[in-house]
């Protein structure tokens, strides 16, 4: 079973529907026991980092997530979920986040008025290193993004793929050990997104060399 973690950070309907589409049993849950039993864990989220961290604390899920990672259970962060597995976000006046991967989250600062914030729509994802998550997906395939802040991993080694927007090239997919994470929304990214989720469901990180 795949656990989709519900921590009151946005609507999980489309995440669940995407797993239904590829025929994988997924359950929306905030129960630590259920999350620890899961074969794979999805950590989604939209909204603001500050509120998300408060909800995680209130639901007592931060330690559960650390335990999931310690056990090496395959873990997929999506959008805000990806941002708050880093160490710090400058959103909401600055928030310390989970620190499962080294890095921080900063806001887009467009130099011209045509680069709108949020970064909303389909943008190209360029693979930095080969990774099973992107197997069968052509380089520069477009995925769906909606976000105003972007991840900045401390070292390039955690960057699996990059995307350009508003004058920066940012890490649009990250990974280390049993963790992978995307800034874009695979659940809303058509067939390429479904393929990425399918790849995640088949991924066996134990057989992988840690990438950093």
């Amino acid at each position: 079973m795949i656990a989709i973690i519900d921590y009151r950070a946005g609507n999980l309907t489309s995440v669940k529907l995407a797993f239904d589409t590829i025929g994988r049993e997924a359950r929306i849950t905030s129960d630590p026991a259920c999350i620890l039993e899961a074969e794979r864990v999805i950590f989604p989220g939209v909204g603001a980092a500050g509120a998300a961290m408060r909800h995680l604390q209130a639901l007592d899920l931060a330690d559960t997530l650390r335990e999931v990672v310690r056990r090496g259970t395959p873990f997929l962060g999506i959008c805000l979920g990806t941002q708050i597995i880093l160490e710090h976000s400058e959103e909401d006046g600055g928030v310390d986040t989970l620190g499962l991967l080294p890095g921080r989250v900063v806001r887009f600062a467009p130099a011209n008025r045509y680069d709108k914030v949020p970064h909303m729509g389909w943008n190209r994802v360029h693979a930095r290193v080969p990774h099973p998550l992107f197997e069968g997906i052509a380089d520069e395939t477009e995925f769906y993004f909606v976000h105003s802040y972007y991840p900045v991993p401390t070292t390039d080694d955690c960057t699996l793929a990059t995307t350009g927007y508003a004058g920066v090239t940012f890490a649009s997919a990250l990974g280390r050990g049993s963790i992978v994470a995307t800034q874009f929304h695979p659940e809303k990214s058509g067939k390429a997104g479904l393929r990425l989720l399918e790849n995640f469901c088949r991924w066996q990180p134990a057989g992988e060399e840690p990438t950093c």
Partner: protein
Amino acid sequence: MLTRRIIPCLDIHNKVVTKGVRFQNNVELGDPVEMAARYYEDGCDELVFYDITASAERRPIDIEMVREVAKAVRIPFAVGGGISNLQDMERVLLAGAEKVSVNSLAVRNPAIIAEGSKAFGAQCIVLGMDPLAVEDRTRCPSGYEITVRGFRERTGMDALEWAKRAVDLGVGEIVVNSVDADGTRSGFELALTGLIADNVSVPVVASGGAGCSQHLVDVFTLAHADAAIIAGMIHTGDTTIPAIKADLVAAGIPIRRHW
């Protein structure tokens, strides 16, 4: 590079997709879920559904249709019409829509934008506006006046001022639907689209008047639209989304190529 979005619009009337000119003379075109699935397969980037009679008939939106669309497509879609409060917004979003669109409701009650944005995130809240070109600039300095209730009623509100105010209230995107161009298939209202797109910080979707690929090229290059709504030109089978995308690629417009 962020690509320009092509968004088919499905106007729903009694569970059937219809198409009219300026909300008149509606012709029945087909089943919304089947059409959504076909456009998804064809590579559209997003979809928008307007339940065009829900508000007039004072009934809530057809939530079962939203659920069926959410099962059929794996791309974002917006739903408008028949939204009267936060509960309606929540029902639509929980049914699987990515965005809700408010138009007349936001004119009557602008606070709904701030409330929706706070509750669900700005990216979920789309402002639809139906501006009409007007001669008298004393009342509307931008030259465009907001209309509501399917163009039937003029409000005296200036389109650009309303757009800026809506952004301040927390709207995440603005659909600018020209009353003058709607249904004509003779091209987008470029001056209006450019005026809004160049003066707000959120993405702007051009709507009304799409008739051929060149109209999309124009609205992306000359009016700086982030996305464009198309309807009649594909509903009638005159052209297809892959054909439009090929034309846009040839014109050098960044477009989603893998679907």
